[in-house]
């Protein structure tokens, strides 16, 4: 397949992917006995285009890791189809493995008896990278993630953060096209997490064909890194889009915060009666008044400010209030989780 033809194929595509883990004693294959098992994925359909950092957000047990396992050929789906660069993950296993790599967080993985360089070299061999190329790449990667001085250090002697950075290098030593990061910064301190994020962003910037699928608990991480995100809950995708889409999707109205001088209480009533204004609330802060406006649509802000000026009010500052990705996530997943918990308590 030529590159131009490949470019039209999504980097990752799943169609109605299901995965049922059978209960102990039950048969584990296929979805025929779906009722007897635990459904980890329930019809997940996703498309990730080349060049994207795609975030998959969800609570523990939502199905994020199960999806990554299927996409990386570690686990067979119970139903549906999953493709990597147009190749079926169940049929074209070796071809898929040639272009992917994975890093999981929250684990102490690594052959402790080997040095960092030895471990990376060994994985380069498994991918068929010539030794000379591998060593040059190892030097470059270790230097880029700040582990240049640890190249000849035994893996067991590395800190958690260093080990995770080494694991990132292990995944990148084969120069994969598609990288799966399964909560890569779990358990890392602020500095190590930042180093991982910065390197992922840099790595993506080097080649437009590269793609990352990232799962994370940290909303700021997704907000900072991801072009698109999907929220998964109970094995189903409950929302998908850009991070801005998700945040705005929650907002029924456009919300603004204004710092006002020379404010009269009558202004508030006047605003509430204006077309397009859903709500207006004020709060006194020292010599200023903070006005919070909810408008039907964003474009109503200009005539609203004009009417305030005409009435004699003075706008000192204006800020659009956007929900954070975390608020969006809680609204999508948390409320449902809360009601589920309340339901369980009521049953007891």
């Amino acid at each position, binding site marked *: *397949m030529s*590159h131009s033809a490949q470019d039209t194929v999504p980097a990752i595509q799943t169609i109605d992917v299901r995965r049922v*883990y*059978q209960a102990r004693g039950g048969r*584990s*294959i296929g979805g025929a006995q779906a009722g007897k098992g635990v459904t980890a994925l329930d019809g997940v359909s996703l498309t990730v285009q080349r060049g994207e950092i795609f975030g998959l957000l969800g609570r523990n047990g939502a199905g994020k890791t*199960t999806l990554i*396992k299927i996409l*990386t*050929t*570690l*686990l*067979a789906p119970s139903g549906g189809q999953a493709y990597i*660069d147009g*190749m079926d993950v169940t049929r074209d296993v*070796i*071809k898929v*493995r*040639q*272009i*992917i*790599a*994975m890093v*999981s967080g929250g*684990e*102490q*993985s*690594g*052959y*402790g*008896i*080997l040095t960092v360089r*030895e471990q990376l*070299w*060994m*994985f380069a*061999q*498994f*991918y*068929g990278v010539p030794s000379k190329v591998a060593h040059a790449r190892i030097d470059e990667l270790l230097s880029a993630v700040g582990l240049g001085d640890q190249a000849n250090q035994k893996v067991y002697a590395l800190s958690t953060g260093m080990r995770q950075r080494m694991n990132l290098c*292990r995944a990148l030593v*084969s*120069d*994969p*096209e598609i990288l799966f990061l399964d909560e890569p910064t779990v358990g890392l301190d602020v500095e190590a997490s930042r180093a991982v994020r910065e390197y992922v962003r840099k790595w993506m910037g080097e080649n437009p064909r590269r793609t990352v699928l990232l799962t994370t608990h940290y909303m700021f991480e997704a907000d900072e890194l991801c072009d698109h995100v999907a929220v998964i809950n109970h094995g189903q995708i409950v929302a998908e889009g850009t991070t801005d889409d998700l945040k705005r999707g929650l907002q029924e109205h456009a919300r603004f915060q204004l710092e006002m001088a020379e404010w009269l209480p009558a202004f508030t009533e006047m605003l509430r009666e204006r077309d397009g204004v859903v709500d207006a609330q004020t709060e006194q802060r020292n010599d200023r008044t903070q006005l919070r406006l909810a408008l039907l649509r964003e474009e109503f802000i200009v005539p609203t400010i004009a009417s305030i000026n005409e009435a004699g009010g003075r706008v000192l500052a204006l800020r659009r209030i956007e929900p954070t990705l975390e608020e969006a996530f809680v609204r999508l997943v948390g409320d449902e989780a809360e009601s589920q918990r309340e339901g369980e308590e009521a049953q007891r």
Partner: protein
Amino acid sequence: MIEATTAPGNLRARIAGTRAWQTLRAATWLEWQSRGNWTNPLLYCLYLIVRPMTASLVLVLMYWVVSGAHAHGGIFGFLICGAAAWTFVEQIVAGIPQAVLADREEYAMLKYVYITPSRFLIFLIGRALPRMLIAFFAFAITLGFGITLLGVPVDLRAVNYPLLLAALVFGFIAITALGIMLAGLALVLKRGAYQMPQAVTGALYLVSGAIFPIVVLPGWLQTIALGVPLTYWLELVRRALLGSHIGEQFPIADTGAVFGWFALTTVAFAAVAYVVFRICDYQARERGQIDRTTGY
């Protein structure tokens, strides 16, 4: 990476061949490091010498107690040669499944190895090779110890070296096939994965004639013994070292026939082992057991 998926057939085959060789080499090197990198080289050499010597001394002492200190009886050479050769089984049959379990549960690396484009089977064969070398060293040490200090009747000038070499090469195939099959089973077992290889080698120790002739076994166990390639393998190693007269204690007298049966059972056994391994590999992926941590 792109080239590997889009290259024409012959080039793709060459890339796959190169990768298979690299995988074999890297897996061999990994196992060698795992075996020897835990201490300094001098101490490791000492360990390699002392371990087989003490293991055979235990058997010798037992033999002396039972036989009334007739260390040079006809069965003595049989026992030492069997014990020496059995180190191959211990190292490889029990060792490969343990390496796989350690990769999965101790190092948490099995999943990363598994999702590389290298063939898992080649990775396992690579893990077996250093163990074979270590076992060969132990085999030689035990025999040397037995010949020089215990008077085992091996005349080095009369040893049938071609037969010994052929037996060791075919034996490696049979033993590695068994180890790979058990590695597959270890992947899918929920409990007892660590104990299973020891249990299997223990059972084989009984029925393969490792330290006593299989003619002393009950009839039904003899039938089982004759279906196991290790029985013929041990017999061939003994005949190569001690001479064909040792075959008087074996149901099949002719060495050529023993070799024929050995080759036949090895091929059959390797085929069964391959099928079992593939089924286990498939099942492990179906059940999500490649990266499982049992904690047992």
